Structures are given as structure tokens and as C-alpha cells.
């Protein structure tokens, strides 16, 4: 496969897509929202338990492509213990990264695996979908989030 592909489907992404972490309903979630990608029809539901502005637990359910599944899995694994302000800042940086390829310092860790997505404009929404759902869950937005 080409370099671009190996950038997109990095080992860590393939791993998380095959064996997603936190792939379950969170029974004691106090935030939750759906995300929907109109391009493909895929949906994800994100569950969060937030206490004192800190993420205590995160999980997700839904169906989607390898990119969106891995993104949800890595997101839920990366954000535990972060404050809401930190989450917002990570989201902003992640957004920049997947659309432009510029890895931002604070996106370190496994999130950086998604830097290759920007070369695949049609797949950017896949990588962002779970994040949109999370952000709308945290805002307790009453309507399902979409990636538009």
C-alpha cells in the first residue's frame, strides 16, 4: 500500500478499529449525544460521566468505518481525567490537525495518529464524528449532533 494509506490506516488505528476500547453503553452517564455523518449515514452515540468539570468516564456505541471507530476508541481512551476546558482545547487542536495535517503539541499521544486524515478530504468527517458527538453531549445539546 502507498505511504498515504499507511499514514491513514496506522497500526494503532487498525488496532483500535478491530478492538475498540470503551465500546459500551455507560449506565451512569450524565451526558450523552448522537452524532451522524450524512455522507455515509453512520451514527455514533457518545456517553460521558462528568463530575466537577472533569471527565470521569467516556464510552461510545454505534457503527462506522475503521477511522470513525478508531477515532471514538482513542478519544474515549485519551480524555479520561481531562477538564472540560482541556477537552475543548484538544478538540480545537484535533480539528486543525485532521483538516490541515499540522500536529499540535497538545494533541500528543495517540491522537496524533489521525494527522494523516487530512490527505483524504472525504474521510475527515469520519475522524471528527465522535468528537462532534462528544462536544454536543458536553453541551447537553438536546438534538443529535452531526458532523456538518
Amino acid at each position: 500500500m502507498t505511504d498515504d494509506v499507511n499514514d491513514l490506516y496506522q497500526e494503532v488505528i487498525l488496532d483500535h478499529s478491530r478492538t475498540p476500547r470503551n465500546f459500551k453503553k455507560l449506565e451512569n452517564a450524565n451526558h450523552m449525544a448522537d452524532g451522524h455523518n450524512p455522507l455515509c449515514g453512520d451514527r455514533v452515540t457518545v456517553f460521558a460521566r462528568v463530575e466537577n468539570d472533569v471527565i470521569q468516564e467516556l464510552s461510545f456505541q454505534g457503527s462506522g468505518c475503521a477511522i470513525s471507530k478508531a477515532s471514538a476508541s482513542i478519544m474515549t481512551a485519551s480524555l479520561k481525567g481531562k477538564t472540560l476546558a482541556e477537552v475543548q482545547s484538544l478538540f480545537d487542536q484535533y480539528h486543525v490537525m485532521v483538516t490541515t495535517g499540522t500536529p499540535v503539541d497538545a494533541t500528543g499521544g495517540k491522537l496524533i495518529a489521525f494527522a494523516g486524515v487530512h490527505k483524504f478530504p472525504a474521510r475527515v468527517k469520519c475522524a471528527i464524528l465522535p468528537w462532534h458527538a462528544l462536544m454536543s453531549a458536553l453541551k447537553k445539546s438536546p438534538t443529535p449532533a452531526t458532523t456538518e
Partner: protein
Amino acid sequence: MVNPAFHCHGCHGEGLMREDFPILNQSIHGYPLVYLDNAATSQKPRAVLDATRNYYERNNANVHRGIHELSNRATAAYENGRERVASFFNARSSREIIFTRGTTEALNLVAHSWGRANLKAGDIILLTEMEHHSNLVPWQLVARETGAELRFIPVTGDEGLLDLSAIDSLLAAPVKLLGMTHISNSLGTINPVAELCQKARRQGVVTVVDGAQSAGHLPVDLQEIGCDFYAFSGHKICGPTGIGGLYARAEIMEQMAPYHGGGEMIQDVEFTHSTYKEPPHKFEAGTPNIAGVVGLHAAMDYLDCIGREKVFCHDQELALYAYELLTRLKGVRLFGPQKGRAGLVSFHLNEIHAHDMVTLADQKGVALRGGHHCNQPLMKKLGVDSTSRASFYFYNSFAEVDRLAEVIREIQKFFGCAAA
């Protein structure tokens, strides 16, 4: 059903006329392009590009209201295009042809001008479960506006045929309209439209055929099919984007309310009311896509020069070959009928999402489409989120189908699927 007279004599799976399509001769990500997304849009031969360029460089003007030479030429080119469309589909007269942007606009025109005036609460709009969103959503909108109700002819399952066992009771009153696709863009099924139109006509039910996938892919004789409306897109049959049309049987067109208001469609305008031209002009407000019609005309000439029987036979052979190769692979679920299919295959790979599949195929130069193919409700019924689709046209070859199968295997391997 497919005319058994379409017999293939010697398409040996070579791509036809490839030299007319410069776009096909390029590399994508370092591999030769294998364009298998023809059901979404076809490529355009030089003859079509030359015809529109020649129009702009010699004859361009606005139509109908002009009296000068260029305007006469433009009007003649436009109206000759209408004649050509009528002859292409064997309509009785060019007056039965309305130009639109494509299939979607044509179907919306029917819903707007015929549907809103003729449907009311309690009426039933009968569609099939395999309709493209373009032949579904306009009817949902008109149903909401008029109070009419939508019902559906079921699809049998993975082999994707219409289940016609209850058709007579489904077609009983108060059905007012039967809408159906001629060829399914996600299954490759060829529906028995002539038979269904005949049944419908006996009940006084108006019929709409979505011809997006049949026009230019097999010979279509509208008098034989006997439908009231037939919609098609130029961009799927070697023509330019932004042009297509609606056939409407003269008798039904005469009774239809206007669609858009504006220039070219009026007879006499006062400040507060107007009278309209005779059909089809009544339904074509504003400056039309004149160069688009010129290109469409050239595309129809081009296709008839190859021969639509030959195109159909060629595409079908490729699809049957692809179907066969893919059945031999593990972990592949195929949709649509095994026999009598149109020139496409739709499939689902175990454990691999269609969008991952298509992204990876593209990296090998193979252009496929993945998704719900504007058939979301059907996908839900089949229990899949999406499928991958390879759709063929006359310029595709057996070698390209081989490449498709090879690439699928490589992708299965990449994802470490048991199948590979």
C-alpha cells in the same frame, strides 16, 4: 424483463472506444485509473466536448425570442436536441420532451406540476422499496402537502427483485400513482416496467419511471414501456452535467399546471396574471442549458453509433464476470439478481466498511462508490449500512474486472481478514 434478443456477439470484454476518453488515460496514486463509478456519472467522449465547444465558438446565442442569425442557430440546435431525445426513446413527438437539469429535477417537476394538482388525502402513491432518494423524497414532500399516503412494493432480499406476489391488491384503488426505477442503481435489478405499467394503466394509475440507470444503457422504447413519465440524466450517458429531461405523455402533459414561472414559458403577461405557452415550453422557464442540449444530442448520436444493444450486452457481461469472480472470494456478500442484471455489482465485505474499502481501492487506482447509494431505506431493510459498488460502461474491460477482484483481495489482506 430484458429483451432476450439482446445477445452478445463478440464483445470479448475489451473496453470499447477508450481512445475517445482522454480522462481514462491517467494514473491515480501511481496506478492506471480503473473507473468503475459509472452509475454515479459517466465519462464524456471527445465528440461531446467538441460539439459543445463548437456551439460556443460558432453559434452561441439565446433561444426562441431572438431573430438574428446566431439566435436562429441556437434555437435550431436546441429544438433539434429535443427531436433527438424523442427519437432516442421513441416518444411519439418531441413535444413530449421537457428539458431539466437531470433526473432529480424531472421527478420533482412531476411531483410539483402533476402531483400537487392530482393527489389528495386518502390517495396512495405506490413506490418500490428500491427507489433512489430522487424518486422517494419528492413524493414524501408532496404526500405531506396533499395528505396522500406512501406505500411500497417490497424487495425480496439480497437477490433484490421486486416481490410482485401481491401486486394486484397493492395496485387496487385508491392508488393514483406508481413510481418505479427501471434499473436499480444499488442492486443492478432490471424491473419489468412495461408489465407494471400495463397493469397500472388498466387501473387508471399514472406511472413514473426513473430512467437514470436505463437511459443510454439499453434500448428504451417509451411507447413499448407505456409509462406516463420517464426521467433521465445526460451526465450518466456520456452527456454534459446539468442537462437531462422528462418525457411526459402528451395527453397528461396538456393537463399539467406550470412548473417555474418566467421568460420563455409565457404567452401573455399582465401585471397580475398570465397565460402560458403550449407544452413543452410551458414547463421550461428561463434560459435553458442550450450547450447542455447540444452535448446531449452528441452523446445520443455517439451511443447509437456504438449501438445500445452492444453497450448493454458488454456491460452485462462485465457485471456477470465480476459477480462470478466475487462469489469465489470469501467474506463477500453480493446483492442483486444473479441473472439478467444490469452492468453493476454491489457487495459488502465482512468486517470492512465500504468507505474503507473504497478509500483503499482508490489508492490502487480503482474508482468505486461506497455508501447507501441514495437508497438508505433499502440498505436498512437489507441490514447493511452501506455497500461497495462497481458499475461499468462500454469503455470498461474484463482486465479491469480482474484488477477489481485483485484489489479486493489485497484490501482484505491489509485488514487482516480471515477471508484473505
